[in-house]
């Protein structure tokens, strides 16, 4: 029978309704999958108990592929078909890839993203990643005993839209429903429970096998915002192995080595590095092909000395990221260590010294990202504890709004609103008999449309003809967890509807967003004045429209002299409205309103007379009774 997990009080799932969800760390070198079991986030291992899956895919001539350790083992025999570090190619064109002459692959250029020629045919990086994700999905389904509701997949904070989309596409090909993409540093912070910690600044120091990333996060109201990122895409644990390797060559005075000997000594170097994490000295023993014996002792001190420049190289990007975020070391409340290479004592020491505090390192640095993703996935499918039922991690960088009359922006969703979110607002028609409404979606903080960024336009047609202001058009802005905006306009009486989907962040870099925000702050006062002026102009226009249409229908109620005075008022207001003087517009409006007060009263009388004309009192009485009956029914 099925195996059960312990639930939180009152939250036992109904049979067949287990919401199985996983977090996936799709790494450059290694990938992992984790889940929350009986309230505890755990990494799921394979049949042999190995938690990591090397991110290596080897394609075979029969069209099949092998993934992970198998592929890694044969990598050196079949380098062309063994794709390593495919993450570096995700969402990238050929021209984006540096040092590709040093890679063993046969590249093809293709619009949007490069392709790799393999024994099994042309493969896009998305397909290669999908192989890794599929392997993890199968592992998770075997471990959890059922199909997955969804997965949270982590991506580097600096991934752009194309790279994120490529990751999502890979998941789709792998048959994995994506609940959300999560930034890797954010996942690490969640693993340490910092989302429940005090609102502050946190640094995530991620030194992996081949890459180094530093991220500065700000936690505010349970939301992590990435303030700055930095790093070195060609610096990682492997470089430390290489330093030891070079030291060995020198210390043992070895002649140039064969490929096999080099690889063997590199393995010894890595073992020595790992040994030094828990010991003061590491013995290195090896026998070369030539029969020559290598017998060395590496001490912590020597290792620290030969790797000093590498450690220092990681501190430079940290300083830069802090500077980019406009912060100093003293602002950082906590430092999270991610990546196996952060186990090295000299790295821990250097980071602790720089930030003047002990870094957080009690979770396994290889697993911390996957664990955070699993926790997030668990919450997103609704398995969380009562009370913290929704964890919101992303915000809208710039306000989203609509253009209204006069080129003004009506903000519907304000900046920093947490996503997913939906807001609606009612609008109406401006002119009598207006049957269509143009919806112009804009992004930005400024008051005038011309100062914001245009995202999309569409038209709502088929509004029944009504007097101005009578139509009720509900415009709904909905932003899903991935930042996709859907705008729907619906006329409430006739039920006509039109909608559009846009990706608001598309093509906007962080710098541009920052620039737009800065502009809005500089122009707050100007914008407010501009807005007030535009609003008066719109009001004036509306009054002119209303009076003109009244004159057209009921002009005969006015004497020639009165008519002339009203018409004069209109002309005066038109003149004022085309100017920039808000006070003059207000005065002209007051005048015209005073001039038409009598006219309005007479029109009212006339319409009442028309309504009751030719009917007697008893008829009216029965109508009133009928209405009352309707009310009580």
């Amino acid at each position, binding site marked *: 029978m099925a195996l059960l997990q312990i639930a939180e*009080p009152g939250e*036992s799932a109904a049979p*067949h309704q287990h919401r199985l969800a996983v977090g996936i760390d799709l790494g450059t070198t290694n990938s992992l999958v984790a889940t929350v079991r009986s309230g505890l986030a755990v990494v799921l291992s394979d049949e042999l108990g190995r938690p990591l899956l090397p991110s290596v895919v080897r394609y075979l001539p029969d069209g099949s592929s092998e993934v992970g350790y198998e592929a890694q083992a044969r990598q050196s025999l079949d380098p062309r078909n063994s794709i390593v570090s495919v993450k570096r190619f995700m969402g990238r064109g050929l021209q984006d890839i540096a040092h590709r002459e040093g890679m063993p692959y046969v590249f093809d250029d293709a619009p949007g993203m490069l392709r790799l020629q393999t024994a099994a045919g042309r493969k896009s990086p998305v397909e290669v990643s999908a192989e890794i994700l599929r392997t993890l999905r199968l592992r998770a389904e075997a471990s959890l*005993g059922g199909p997955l509701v969804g997965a949270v997949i982590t991506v580097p904070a600096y991934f752009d839209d194309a790279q994120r989309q490529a990751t999502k596409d890979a998941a789709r090909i792998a048959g994995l429903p994506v609940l959300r993409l999560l930034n890797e540093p954010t996942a690490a912070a969640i693993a340490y429970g910092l989302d429940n910690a005090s609102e502050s600044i946190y640094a995530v120091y991620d030194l992996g096998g081949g890459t180094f990333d530093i991220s500065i996060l700000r936690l505010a109201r349970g939301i992590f915002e990435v303030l700055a990122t930095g790093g070195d895409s060609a610096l990682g644990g492997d470089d430390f192995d290489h330093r030891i390797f070079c030291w060995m060559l020198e210390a043992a005075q070895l002649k140039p080595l064969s490929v096999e000997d080099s690889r063997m000594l590199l393995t010894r170097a890595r073992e020595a590095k790992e040994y030094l994490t828990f010991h003061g000295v590491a013995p290195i023993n090896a026998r070369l092909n030539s029969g020559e014996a290598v017998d060395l002792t590496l001490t912590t001190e020597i290792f620290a000395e030969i790797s000093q420049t590498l450690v220092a190289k990681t501190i430079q990007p940290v300083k830069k990221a802090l500077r980019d975020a406009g912060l100093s070391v003293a602002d950082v409340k906590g430092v999270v260590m991610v990546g196996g290479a952060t186990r090295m004592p000299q790295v821990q020491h250097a980071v602790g010294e720089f930030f003047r505090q002990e870094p957080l390192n009690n979770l396994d640095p290889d697993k911390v990202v996957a664990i955070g993703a699993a926790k997030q996935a668990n919450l997103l499918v609704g398995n969380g504890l009562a009370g913290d039922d929704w964890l919101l991690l992303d915000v809208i960088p710039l306000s989203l709004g609509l253009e209204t009359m006069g080129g003004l922006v009506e903000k519907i969703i304000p900046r920093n609103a947490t996503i997913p979110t939906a807001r609606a607002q009612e609008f109406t028609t401006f002119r009598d008999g207006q049957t269509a409404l143009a919806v112009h979606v804009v992004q930005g903080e400024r008051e005038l449309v011309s100062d914001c960024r245009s995202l999309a336009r569409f038209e709502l047609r088929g509004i029944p003809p009504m007097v101005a202001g009578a139509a009720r058009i509900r415009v709904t802005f909905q932003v899903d967890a991935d930042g996709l905006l859907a705008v729907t306009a619906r006329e409430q009486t006739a039920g006509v509807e039109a909608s559009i989907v846009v990706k608001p962040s598309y093509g906007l870099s962080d710098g541009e967003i920052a620039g737009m925000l800065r502009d809005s702050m500089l122009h707050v006062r100007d914008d407010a004045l501009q807005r007030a002026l535009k609003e008066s102009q719109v009001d004036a226009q509306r009054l002119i429209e209303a009076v003109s249409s009244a004159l057209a229908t009921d002009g005969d109620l006015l004497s020639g002299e009165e008519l002339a005075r009203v018409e004069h008022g209109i002309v005066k207001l038109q003149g004022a409205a085309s100017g920039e003087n808000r006070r003059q517009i207000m005065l002209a409006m007051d005048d015209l309103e005073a001039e038409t007060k009598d006219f309005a009263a007479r029109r009212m009388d006339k319409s009442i007379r028309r309504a009751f004309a030719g009917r007697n009192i008893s008829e009216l009485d029965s109508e009133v009774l009928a209405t009352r009956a309707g009310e009580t029914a």
Partner: protein
Amino acid sequence: MAVTLSERAASHVANYMVKRGKGIGLRLGVRTSGCSGMAYKLEFADVAHPDDIQFESYGVRVLIDPKSLPYLDGTELDYAREGLNEGFRFNNPNVKDACGCGESFNV
């Protein structure tokens, strides 16, 4: 009348409770649900209800509401591993038949 944990199950529960940081024990129960009539409830317990019937197995407190007890009497909760999957299993002598997956059952 008794409900017990296997030693393995008890050590896993104790371990989860320590990591969870709170809770007084394990609450077992049944409820009407699922394709074969009833389903198990397996939850952490933070409070004891006045009419709960309590047992203790290998140091773990087990709480059961009186209505559920007849359906669970004689049950041993075990911890099992099936391939990559692992979790708790109810060895319940009262069960007459269960649905294919065993998530819901009939007495």
